[in-house]
């Protein structure tokens, strides 16, 4: 196989050869508003993130007692929390996020939950993604339904959402066109073979759709990588290498950061996808969770780095970006018998980005006394996560209140959209 017979997927697309490709090219007729197109990234944190360790309420009178050896001290103390507002701090692994807070780009929500009140990861994640009030209430996800309901100026002919990974998680599945993307280490096919596969798939609805999505996303990536991103990449690489860190295996986080960097590159394009989903796992900390140091902190530090890379690689598009980080539920207020925490209820969520009205902690803090804990066990939710999602989708992506209440989040009358989450 010679170099010039290798596939140039862009040319394939432009010739309209791949099944469905013609529909996708209408994407390019979209004219971006002068302010720059809004971008929304949803970071799913699977495994029930321990909100009380991400946003330690060090000044709560019951916190240190409940958390024992996992308690994170006040800012200023050895291994203390990073300062937020004098009552809450941030986990010491989250230095970029703390910086974002001081730059008013981080809004902290310490006591949120979905409507789900049992303690199964898998049902909890299903509710987090399906946008309803019960597990398996829907085969599509709230973010896909939001895309389907976008007003005409934002709705495009092609895909408007992308999942970072090989497959699309429930939150982004549904009627609206979306794709998955992850970097490949395998050689590309020659154009002729790919064309023949596309021809064969023409009579297979699913496979022709998927192939067209893949080709279209590859084009974003190719163009993003050919653009202005590399300069920013090299400086980030250097600082990452200097940072050391507690990761015993650097290659996996490094690969992940590179993936985030590429995704940021195509999100930043005016004709790029409006929303993206990043899936993260490993937050289920039943055993040896660690406090200011240890397992959870190390994992949070990698996440923190990836968010720093996202901001840097998005360049000026960051100003129009909102990132929501959320989990299916929280963990027990008290530590368990094995220096970890078991499944709980409320957790913390974070809103990050240039478009966020940050530098604030937003909570009706329920406290951690035995009297106020949910079922004498967990942090009590005082804010419905759907209110946050609705507020962002309405103010940032201009999804109508009607669509939010009826299609995106059915049965969410009790959780009205929070306003004021974004910069005016």
């Amino acid at each position, binding site marked *: *196989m010679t170099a010039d017979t290798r596939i140039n997927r862009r040319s394939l697309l432009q010739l309209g050869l791949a099944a469905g490709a013609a529909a996708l090219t209408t994407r390019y007729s979209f004219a971006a508003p002068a302010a720059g197109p809004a971008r929304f990234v949803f970071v799913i944190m*699977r*495994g029930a993130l321990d909100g009380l360790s991400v946003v330690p309420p060090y000044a709560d009178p019951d916190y240190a007692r409940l958390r*024992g050896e996992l308690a994170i001290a006040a800012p200023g103390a050895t291994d203390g929390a990073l300062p937020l507002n004098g009552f809450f701090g941030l986990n010491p692994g989250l230095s970029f996020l703390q910086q974002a807070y001081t730059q008013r780009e981080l809004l902290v929500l310490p006591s949120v939950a979905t409507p789900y009140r*049992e*303690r*199964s*990861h*898998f*049902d909890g994640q299903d509710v987090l993604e399906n946008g309803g009030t019960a*597990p398996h209430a829907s085969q599509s996800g709230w973010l896909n339904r939001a895309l389907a309901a976008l007003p005409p100026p934002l709705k495009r002919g092609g895909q408007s959402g992308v*999942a970072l*990974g*090989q*497959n*699309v998680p429930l939150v982004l*599945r549904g009627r609206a066109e979306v*794709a*998955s*993307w*992850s970097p*490949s*280490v*395998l*050689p*590309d*096919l020659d154009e*002729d*073979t*790919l064309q*023949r*596969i596309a*021809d*064969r*798939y023409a*009579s*297979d609805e*699913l*496979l022709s759709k*998927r*192939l067209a*999505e*893949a080709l279209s*996303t*590859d084009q974003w990536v190719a163009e993003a990588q050919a653009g202005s991103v590399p300069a920013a990449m090299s400086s980030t690489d250097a600082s990452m290498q200097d940072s050391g860190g507690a990761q015993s295996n650097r290659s996996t986080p490094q690969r992940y950061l590179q993936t985030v960097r590429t995704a940021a590159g195509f999100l930043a394009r005016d004709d790029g996808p409006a929303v993206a989903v990043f899936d993260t*796992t*490993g937050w*289920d900390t*039943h*055993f040896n969770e660690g406090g200011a140091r240890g397992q959870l902190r190390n994992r949070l530090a990698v996440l923190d780095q990836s968010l720093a890379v996202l901001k840097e690689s998005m360049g000026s598009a960051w100003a129009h970006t909102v990132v929501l980080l959320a989990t299916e539920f929280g963990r027990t207020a008290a*530590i*368990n*018998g*094995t220096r*970890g925490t*078991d*499944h709980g209820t409320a957790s913390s969520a974070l809103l990050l980005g240039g478009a966020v009205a940050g530098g604030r902690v937003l909570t009706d803090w329920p406290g951690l006394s035995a009297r106020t804990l949910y*079922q004498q*066990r967990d942090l009590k939710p005082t804010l419905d996560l759907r209110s946050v999602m609705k507020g962002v989708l309405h103010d940032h992506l201009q999804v109508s209140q009607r669509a939010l209440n009826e299609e995106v989040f059915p049965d969410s009358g009790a959780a009205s959209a929070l306003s004021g989450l974004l910069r005016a």
Partner: protein
Amino acid sequence: MSIDCAAPIAANRFGLGAVPGQLAQIGADPRGWLSSQLRGPPPLLGGAQLRPTADVLRDAAAARKQLQALRRNSPDSTTSAAGAVGSLMRVGALLRQSYVADVTARLQSGASSERPFLERLVYFWSNHFAVSVDKLAVLGVAGSFEREAIRPHVLGHFSELLLAVEQHPAMLLYLDNQRSAGPNSPAAQRAANHDRTLGLNENLAREIMELHTLGVDAGYTQADVSSFAKVLTGWSLGGGEGPLSRGNAGEFLFRAPLHEPGAQSVFHQRYEQSDEAQGRAVLIDLAQARSTARHLATKLARHFIADEPPPAAVEHIAQAFEHSGGHLPTVYQALIQCDEAWSAPFSKFKTPQDYVLSTYRGLQLAVADTPHPLAAFEVLGQRQFAPGSPAGWPDRGDDWNGASALMKRIELADAVAQKIGGTREIAALAPQLLGNGLSDATRQSIARAASPPQALTLLLTAPEFMRR
């Protein structure tokens, strides 16, 4: 039943992919071919390089002790740092070696087994009782877990399988039960006197009820989970660190000092036993619960029939489970008898594991001859024994048929074809693998291919080879 496609359904959906010649062998009696695989001994896997769990964990513990001794004796010197790094690497290398040996043997077994239905059932159960090697403690023992806890019991009763799984060190480590202590246990009382906390960990109890037996909608409560967690206190393994050093390293050990004293109520039953017998009794009851039969029947029907399993088939399988007291061969027979399983060919999108194994089988490749047999699974997003959660790998098409996933599968198929496509007669091979399931469109695209490698790429990427 669609007689035409019965043989390819038996080989590809129930089995792991047709081997040339197999469809003819299956002939007109696909159900008989499947049933015959359920007779005979359980599908054990052995070999000199496959080590028992206890050996792996004993060696890992010894290497860790060495490391601690090094740190204690000379905390500052660079020589000890170098020694510590060396010991740490030895632990990692040791665990990785076991993992690679086991995964390679498992793949070879899948690629060449003459009882592929039974082999698929092994994978089904080890995914049902998932452990994940992204927890380092499990890395060296995920393979031995399958060999020791799953394989010997796939042709037995579900209760035996369940007990073997929940007492296996890999599961106890994966779901954090080895140190779980009853709040009123002697060990917790002693710890409290020394200002240390020792107590309950709910992880194993919850996942046994939710994932392994009853299913999430069975109606158990948080109180049931907590009580069951107390029942399971003391279910541990020998040769741990510090106060847990008693017992043989890497073997199941009931640690009476950790066990919560007294009777417990779990899911409408009261258990008065005072030791390990209490946990066994709960497991036996859970294994026989109605909800368990339905939960398992749903998963089997989803795996073998359709993403949204037909209710009648689920009911049929669940009744076989209940009436036979969880006798697994009886359950599998009921599954084979479901007409729904034979009516629609290619209704299941292959997982990466299905895809890779069916490629091995179809092309009669030996895993040993593949340069990096594990890499294909990483590339396709299904690293062996690494589902990342105790729920195991998902089993619906939408979980595997993403755009990026499809493109990687196509790229992998092409890489294989570039390498060996010239050595096969593809037009003759295609009907050997797909039988009457081979469509005219695929037959034509293969016939018109510009080269033998391209013909193989077109076979391996055909819609009917992407599915089973």
